[in-house]
Structures are given as C-alpha cells and as structure tokens.
C-alpha cells in the first residue's frame, strides 16, 4: 500500500532564534535611547526633575499594571494552546488585545493633557521654556510614541495569530507563531518597565 502523506518542513527552533535576534536589535535601539535620556538627565538635572513632575504617576502606574496583566494573559494563552484548549486561547488573546487598547487609550488621554498645556515638541509654549524642558518633553514624546508604535504592531501581530488559531493553523503541536508573538509582546512590556520609572518616578 502506498502512502502519499506529505510532510512540510518546519523548524520551530530556527523561528525562535530569529525572533530573539529581532528582539536583540530592538533592545539595542531602546538602550541607545535610554543612554540619550541618561546623558541629558545628567546635563539638565534640574529641568528634568521639574518637568517629570508634570507627568501623572497614577496614570503611568495603571498603564504598567494593564501591560503586565496583558503579559500574563498572552503567557497563559501560550500554555492553553499547548494543552489544546482553542477556546481559552482565543479568549485570552482577545483580552490581551483589549488590554493593549486600554493602554493606548490611557496614553491618548495623557498625551492630550500635555497638548492642551502646550507641552509638545515644536509648540510656542514649550520653546519658551528652558533647553532641559524641551529635551525632556522631546524625549518623552519620542520614546513613549515609539513604544506605542511597537504596541500597535504587537496588537496587529496578536490579531494575525488570533486568525491563525481560528483557522487552526496554530494548534497544540504547532504554536511557534503564538510563542513568537508572546515574545514580542513581552518585549513591549520589558521596555515599559524602564520607561515608567525613568520618566515618571525619578524626580
């Protein structure tokens, strides 16, 4: 009897290594930005000290908890798919997307307040302040904005994985896509763990 079952080559390990290499480049990108922040913080310590008091610690802390919670839900979805629980995986991915959106909505309100106060790069009000203030808010908008862009990319990635789970292209024995998606989401988490204390807490 002839068997015509084709096997598609798959290398989950290589896919994981590829994702980690990408994460390394991202970590270097943010490390460079943190270095810029530290240098200017040292140069304009007084201005940075006062400018950081303009940021709302409560909103920052709530966003931290929201992001950490989303890290937990995507992590559990990884376990759920390995256990073959498709329904739970989909629920958890949906909750992760909602939590990511909550983070962005919070960030929107935070940014809107800064815009209303004229504290955004290029504004007449900000240009009238000291160089240290201009640097602080320039870095604040650039770094939190870049982080938000990564978060949006992460949400798109999770949506793709969600679709793949629905179509059963990701399942109990083939979950590298979900695993890599989780790695990316935790990177977003990791960057925020440093952005929050540097901008909001150290003053």
């Amino acid at each position, binding site marked *: 009897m*002839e*068997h*015509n*079952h*084709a*096997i598609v080559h798959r290398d*989950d390990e290589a896919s*994981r290594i590829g994702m*980690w290499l990408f994460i*390394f480049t991202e*970590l*270097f990108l943010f*490390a*460079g930005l*943190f*270095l810029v922040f*530290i*240098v200017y913080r*040292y140069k304009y310590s007084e201005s940075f000290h006062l400018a950081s008091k303009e940021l709302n*610690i409560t909103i920052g*802390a709530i966003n*931290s*908890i929201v992001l*950490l*919670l989303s*890290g*937990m839900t995507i*992590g*559990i979805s990884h*376990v759920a798919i*390995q256990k073959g629980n498709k329904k739970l995986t989909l629920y958890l991915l949906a909750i992760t997307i909602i939590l990511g959106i909550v983070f962005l909505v919070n960030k929107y309100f935070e940014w809107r307040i800064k815009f209303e106060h004229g504290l955004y790069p290029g504004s007449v009000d900000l240009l009238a302040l000291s160089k240290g203030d201009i640097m602080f808010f320039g870095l604040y908008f650039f770094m939190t904005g870049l982080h938000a862009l990564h978060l949006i990319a992460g949400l798109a990635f999770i949506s793709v994985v969600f679709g793949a789970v629905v179509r059963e292209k990701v399942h*109990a*024995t*083939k*979950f590298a896509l979900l695993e890599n998606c*989780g*790695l990316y989401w*935790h*990177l977003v*988490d*990791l960057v925020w*763990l*440093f952005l*929050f*204390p540097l901008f909001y*807490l*150290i*003053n």
Partner: protein
Amino acid sequence: MVVPVPVILSYKLMMMESAKKNLPGFRMYFYTFTSLALLTLLEVWLTQIKIETALMVGLILTIAVLQAAIVLLYNMHLKFQEKIFAVFISILSFLILVLIVFTMLDYIYR
C-alpha cells in the same frame, strides 16, 4: 515528498513531547504578574516616602532591573529554554551596561 505514516506520527509525537518539555503552567504566569505588579507598586511607594534622592534612584533602578529579569526568565521562557539564549541575553546586557557606563564616564570626566 512521500513519507510513510509512522514517520509522520513519530514527528508529531516528537513535537508534542517538545511542547510538553517547555510547558510552564498557568500558575507561573499568575505569580510573575503578581510579583511584577507588587514591585511596580513598591516603586511608586518609594517616590512617596522621604528618602535621599540617590538612594531612591538606586532602589527604583534596582527594582526595574529585577522586573526585567523576571520578564526575561519566566515570561520570555529563558529559564526553560536552551542555555544559549540566556548566554546571548547576558552578553547583550553586558554590552548595554558597558555602553552606558563608558559613555557616562566619558561625559562626566571629559
């Protein structure tokens, strides 16, 4: 490519075995979330009490590094994967540390 059924089955079994080997439980994610959230609240609390600024900055940055280690080890599974990933991330962290320390030394003492 034509492959006999037993090979496909053994391949599937191998993938399932590999999956089981790296399987952290639901609880682990709950514990890591709880510890990370508590550490975040501790950071916020440190800004509300009266302590020396240098000490506060040192403590907050130490907590941030501790949180990053928890995320890397547990959420990103470094603890459960091949050691090579942990070696890579250690080298990367060292390079970032060198980059920051040497730049600051150059900036301060120039």
